[in-house]
């Protein structure tokens, strides 16, 4: 797609989105109005702030507010848009300054405001005016400033009467004046007679109460009475750090803004906010009609059961799963009772709780229990769960549905089925995940590779025999080859020496000034060395080779053979002719040519 088209598409989508967001909420929400006063008590001449907030409207004319004994004047208007889950709400707030003119209790009447074609009404407010302004204090039950409580806490209970073991959802509500900056910590709850669930993350919202705006922080938990009688709820200390205005004397004849107790310089202070004590009537669980299977569950529950696998053999584990759902004291709940266990071997169950509320008293708890059938069975053992219902004040019994199973095989002679370690220890905590039922691996039905024994193979004589025979062969072969190499080396060295001597004799033959005895001696030596090379590896002195031996080593034609004989004879004549023979002038060229031709013919001939 082209960039221009994409940009246009994005623009259209954005425009539609903005249009939808702006147009969506106005028609949906009905308008409402509220009036809040910055204090319920004040001194004569002290300035308070009155806010009239209209939600769900955007153009509201500031209503005229009149009350006896009070000077009320408009000081401004503000509008606000609030988004909550894609639900947009507009609100308009008109602010007034309220100055008491005399002592007494005065009422700001309900105001009727026309908004969006309808008329809405604010609640009336009451203000007590005293003669002079008092000093502020911060104390135990509630925190106050300038005679006004700026923070307080309270318990909110659904009822004040309960049974022992009944989990009661409670709220600890903390109110902090909306104009006070306050950093709170998690409450510290301690007391006898109750167990307290872990506090969840607090919820916070702004509310109007007694004509003022408060930041409401709600801590949710559940209390479970541990004994009967009239019990006081546990103390709950909420440590908080508040930022308070500095205390100062009200200045007469000065603009009200400068006398606003919340407009002064801030002062940080640590306070403890504690709710008023509340008592609860705790009744004991009735003894009459208590089934023997009752294990302490109090609340309202349902039971679901299942067993898997459904087709097993005797000795194979079956996992029985019981799911208890509802509201109650899951932390004290024990597993449903498995009855009719004849032919079954049971292992301790394990439980896992999954809460679906903040207080941890609503949800489902899953119990898993390993059962080993010791004989053929057609169904799993029945399951019952007994609990006390505080609403009806009676014990109730739930029965699990019939679970069909097919257990084949014959009855096992002894209950020696494997016990999973985690289950067998009996220490599986209720809140830990249930371990899977474990067992040893099944048989290996194939015979497997046969082995001779446990002794290592290197200790067996066959191992060394099997290694030594080829090793001996290899060594023998290597020795033979080594000897052969040595022999070859000797022959090569002898041949090299003979070739070197022959080369030296050839050099004499090539010399033009060679004397006859040297020339013929070199020729004979060439013949002898050539014959010796051809007779290798037979050794012997080459100088001992005579004419017949030379002729026997090659197949020569008659002329060449005769030439070889004459050559030997000429050499003998020169050797044995006496002093001076053969040492004179050089060899005649024709003789020289003839000798070299004989040598060439000899070298060309084959052995």
């Amino acid at each position, binding site marked *: 797609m082209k960039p221009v088209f994409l940009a246009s598409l994005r623009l259209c989508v954005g425009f539609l989105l903005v249009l939808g967001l702006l147009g969506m909420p106005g028609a949906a929400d009905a308008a409402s109005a509220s009036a809040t006063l910055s204090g319920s008590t004040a001194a004569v001449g002290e300035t308070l702030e009155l806010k009239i907030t209209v939600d769900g409207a955007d153009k509201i004319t500031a209503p005229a507010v009149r009350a006896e004994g009070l000077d009320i004047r408009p000081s401004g208007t503000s509008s606000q848009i609030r988004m909550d889950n894609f639900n947009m709400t507009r609100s308009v707030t008109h602010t007034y300054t309220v100055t008491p003119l005399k002592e007494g209790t005065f009422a700001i009447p309900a105001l009727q405001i026309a908004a969006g074609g309808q008329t809405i009404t604010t609640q009336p407010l009451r203000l007590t005016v005293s003669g002079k302004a008092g000093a502020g204090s911060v104390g135990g039950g509630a925190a106050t400033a300038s005679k006004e409580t700026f923070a307080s806490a309270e318990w909110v209970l659904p009822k004040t009467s309960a049974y022992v073991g009944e989990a009661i959802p409670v709220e600890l509500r903390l109110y902090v004046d909306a104009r006070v900056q306050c950093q709170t910590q998690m409450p510290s709850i301690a007391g006898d007679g109750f167990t307290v669930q872990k506090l969840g993350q607090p919820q916070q919202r702004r509310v109007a109460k007694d004509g003022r705006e408060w930041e409401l922080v709600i801590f949710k938990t559940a209390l479970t009475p541990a004994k009967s009688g009239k019990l006081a709820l546990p103390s709950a200390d909420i440590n908080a750090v508040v930022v308070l205005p500095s205390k100062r004397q009200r200045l007469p004849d000065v603009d009200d803004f400068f006398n606003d107790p919340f407009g002064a310089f801030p002062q940080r202070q640590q306070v403890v906010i504690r709710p008023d004590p509340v008592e609860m009537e705790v009744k004991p669980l009735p003894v009459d009609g208590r089934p023997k299977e009752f294990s302490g569950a109090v609340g309202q529950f349902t039971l679901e059961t299942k067993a898997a696998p459904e087709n097993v053999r005797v000795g194979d584990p079956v996992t029985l799963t019981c799911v208890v759902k509802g509201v109650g004291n899951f932390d004290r709940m024990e597993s449903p009772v498995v009855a009719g266990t004849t032919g079954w071997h049971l292992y301790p169950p394990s439980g896992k709780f999954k809460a679906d509320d903040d207080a941890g008293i609503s949800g489902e708890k899953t119990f898993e229990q390993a059962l080993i059938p010791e004989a053929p069975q057609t169904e799993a053992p029945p399951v019952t769960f007994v609990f006390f219902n505080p609403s009806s004040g009676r014990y109730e019994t739930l029965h699990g549905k019939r679970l069909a199973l097919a257990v084949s095989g014959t009855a096992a002679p002894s209950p020696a089925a494997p016990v999973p370690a985690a289950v067998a220890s009996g220490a599986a905590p209720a809140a830990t995940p249930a371990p899977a039922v474990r067992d040893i691996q099944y048989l290996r*039905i194939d015979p497997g590779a*046969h082995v001779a024994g446990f002794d290592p193979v290197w200790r067996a004589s066959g191992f060394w025999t099997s290694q030594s025979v080829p090793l001996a062969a290899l060594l023998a072969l290597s020795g033979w*080859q080594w000897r052969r190499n040595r022999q070859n080396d000797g022959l090569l060295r002898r041949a090299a020496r003979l070739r070197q001597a022959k080369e030296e004799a050839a050099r004499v033959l090539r010399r033009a000034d060679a004397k006859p005895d040297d020339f013929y001696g070199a020729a004979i030596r060439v013949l002898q060395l050539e014959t010796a090379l051809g007779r290798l590896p037979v050794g012997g002195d080459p100088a001992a080779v005579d004419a017949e031996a030379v002729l026997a080593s090659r197949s020569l034609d008659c002329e060449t053979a005769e030439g070889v004989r004459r050559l030997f004879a000429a050499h003998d004549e020169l050797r044995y002719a006496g002093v001076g023979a053969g040492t004179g002038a050089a060899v005649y060229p024709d003789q020289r040519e003839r000798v070299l031709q004989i040598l060439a013919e000899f070298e060309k001939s084959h052995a």
Partner: protein
Amino acid sequence: MLEKVARKETKGPRGARIFLLLLLFCAGARAAAPADLNAAHALYDKGDYAGARAGYEALVQSGPWSANLFYNLGNAAYRQGEKGSAFLAYERALALEPGHPEAAANLRFLREETGAKLPAVTWVDRALEHPAGNTAAWLAAAAFWGLCFSLAPLVWKRRAAAGPALVCVLALGWSGAALWWQNSQGALWIVTADTATARTEPADNATATAKLPVGSRVRLLLERGAWVNVRLPDASKGWIARDAADPVRLARR
């Protein structure tokens, strides 16, 4: 151990056991091994673990041995609640076939169940425990022959295959060291009693130094009468009763 096992009371159907033993004696153990094995498997499947165990033990007596045979014997012993015998059989299966996966898994399972003690594994152990047993021997032999053939060209061609020769030298050194180390550790024994008490002296009234749960591994150092001196899993030495442990290596009858 086999004698000990044979003394234990078997609980399976008498007819099936007699039939099995007759089958073994009549047919000849070696020739009929697969059929006997299947008969033992069938007894196991029927839940007659005593009969199955007797069948497996008869096959062990007659041979041939295999890791699977000892593994199945371990399963039957376990089903009877004889954890010590099961440990021993699984260890024997692993001794015959170090990579036997089911035997290793069942051993882990049993160790978790009983808390059997094993010696701490050092880096030397990790380096030299593999290749194990016969694998090391065959690797050493192969490396040796590889080295021979790498050096043989020196004689024929006056030139050696240096790279392969180096590899073979390293393999030979490693496998040889593994063999030496494994052989120097002493024979492996397994505690088959529910608990074995290690003492400082070979006497019942000697100071006890350790309690060894069933399945714990010890290394034999010395045998003296009814006591054996062993290296305990914590590397210390101690004396334990001879009938509280059994050697993994089973001598061929």
